[in-house]
């Protein structure tokens, strides 16, 4: 009984703040913690605020590009690793885990330093030939996000490849399919749910990331950066509404990804 109470306490501790944010996003009043009645006003206000919509578009562009690049490159990387043997493969496997384990703040700082170093090195040369200087922008955020989402995608696809029946590939080759035809007709259909799941996870992780974007976004404002900077002016129900919208989108995408990975496991 006491164990149950303890568990309940943990869950309350974990989720009560989130529940409060969701709850107060429907507040009619002006102040975050002063309940004045139910209203969807703040959702309307948040998503008609031009700064918010611009930040949202920025975030969506970053998340979309990150997901596409991480999924394509990650899938190819996983397929390549599958064929590799020996210490090189072990090295890459280890590096992939490292990329996931490294805290966001470290990725943020190290990519920032890397970008600045590269910019300082190549910008004088670019200026000399009359080309535009390299600077922080959406693409630096995308590059930094791809860095760790790539590892996520590789892990997911690797797990699927390892669980795949090798004899299916052989059966396809035995039935006159060239290696490329086998990939298209047998391997790809088997990987598709995992590829989609990898896409959704990268999209979510990129969309809700604050720390890395904070370091390398330059003058751009993503949605999490906007939320962070407005909190300094006090928490309004508008922030709660944005937070709730982000939360629900992320949850929906994560659940869909989970469903895809599970459905695959059941089919084989």
């Amino acid at each position, binding site marked *: 009984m006491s164990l149950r109470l303890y568990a309940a306490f943990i869950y309350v501790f974990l989720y009560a703040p989130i529940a409060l944010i969701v709850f107060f996003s429907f507040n009619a009043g002006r102040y975050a913690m002063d309940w004045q009645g139910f209203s969807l006003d703040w959702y309307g206000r948040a998503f008609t605020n031009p700064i918010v919509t611009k930040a949202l578009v920025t975030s969506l562009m970053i998340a979309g590009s990150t997901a596409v690049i991480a999924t394509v490159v990650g899938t190819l990387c996983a397929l390549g690793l599958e064929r590799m043997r020996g210490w090189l493969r072990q090295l890459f496997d280890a590096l992939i885990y490292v990329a996931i384990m490294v805290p966001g703040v470290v990725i943020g700082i190290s990519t920032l330093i890397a970008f600045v170093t590269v910019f300082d090195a190549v910008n004088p040369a670019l200026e000399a030939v009359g080309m535009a200087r390299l600077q922080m922008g959406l693409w630096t955020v995308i590059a930094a996000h791809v860095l760790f989402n790539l590892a996520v995608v590789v892990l997911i696809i690797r797990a699927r490849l390892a669980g795949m029946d090798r004899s*299916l590939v*052989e059966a*396809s*080759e*035995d*039935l*006159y399919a*060239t290696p490329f035809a086998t990939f298209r007709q047998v391997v790809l259909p088997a990987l598709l749910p995992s590829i989609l799941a990898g896409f959704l996870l990268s999209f979510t992780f990129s969309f809700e990331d604050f720390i890395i974007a904070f370091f390398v976004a330059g003058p751009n404002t993503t949605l999490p950066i906007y939320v962070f900077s407005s909190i300094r002016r006090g928490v309004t129900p508008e922030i709660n509404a944005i937070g709730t919208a982000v939360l629900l989108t992320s949850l929906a995408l994560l659940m869909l990804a989970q469903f895809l990975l599970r459905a695959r496991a059941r089919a*084989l």
Partner: protein
Amino acid sequence: MTKPAAIPDISFRGVSKRYGDVVAVDKVDLDLSKGSFVSLLGPSGCGKTTCLRMMAGFEQPSAGEVFIRGDNVTGVPAYRRPVNMVFQHYALFPHLNVADNVSYGLRQRSPRPPREGIAKAVDEALSMVRLSGYGARRIWELSGGQQQRVALARALINRPAVLLLDEPLAALDRKLRHDMQIELQNLQRNVGITFLLVTHDQEEALSMSDRVCIMKDGRLVQAGTPRELYDEPVNGYVADFVGKSNFFAGTAGQASDGLIKVALVDGMKTAGRASRSTAPPRQGDAVLVSVRPERIRLAAAERDLPNQIAFRAEAKVLNRIFLGEQTEYLVAHDRLGEFMVRSPRQGNQARAFEIGDRVAIGWPPDAALVLIKD
């Protein structure tokens, strides 16, 4: 120029396969003649599956050459070899229905055959394996036996030079396995395609095939008809692997009139003939005398044994198993140990011996084969 009919569907010439220091297949020469049903038989790890995979093209030999219908296909990948395989666990594509699985091979051809042509071929292939009307089913809706037949249809629709079967019956239960054995034999006779079956089940190999190739430690020990393997094994290993036999160790002595004298333990003597499949053992060789249980005679006393007997002795009945038309006895001799005897039922005479009875045993000289060990 040899005549086309004389070209085997698959030939191995000195084929070896090494994985690092391990020799999986060691200088195998093999010919599968057209339209035959051949089995590769041996215990697990004997190299039979590696041979099959080198025929299919999943593995390439470390040395030697592979020919399919006279063409040297050494180094040619699986997708360019005119053979098809039925996998041990069928390897049906889970994301395709039955018809799309069966038509898979046809759809890889370039140019792709017309849609109606493929549909007709699929119908024919499915009816051949008695699965007409199952085209739209999903793979996981089928039983193990049905999946097996889909795998057969998927391979045979391509009219391969050879159908390779990798322990295809191992995953089926006993009753279904027997039905599938008969079905496979009928199928092979109807389509006239060469079948190569890999199995570790000697009963399966003997009952289904025209020719059986016995492998051990990567080597082809003997290839022949089931009858040749049973009656004329090249060595003790084959005699032991094919059917049941009693073995007595000894030393080969002089040969005369086609009979080789053998000195057994404790100064006992017997004689037997050499196998017709191999050179006879030389004087002084360590040999095994192999006597099939159905060739050993039992009698109440030595004088009741028939005249032409190469070995006679007294023994005690240890066990008796009634098998219907035969009775199987386990008898013990003080110095030679235990042996198995199978006696047919003889007329009305109830000539059964009981456990504990003293009996006389003996066998005619041509029943004993003098073989080298392996």
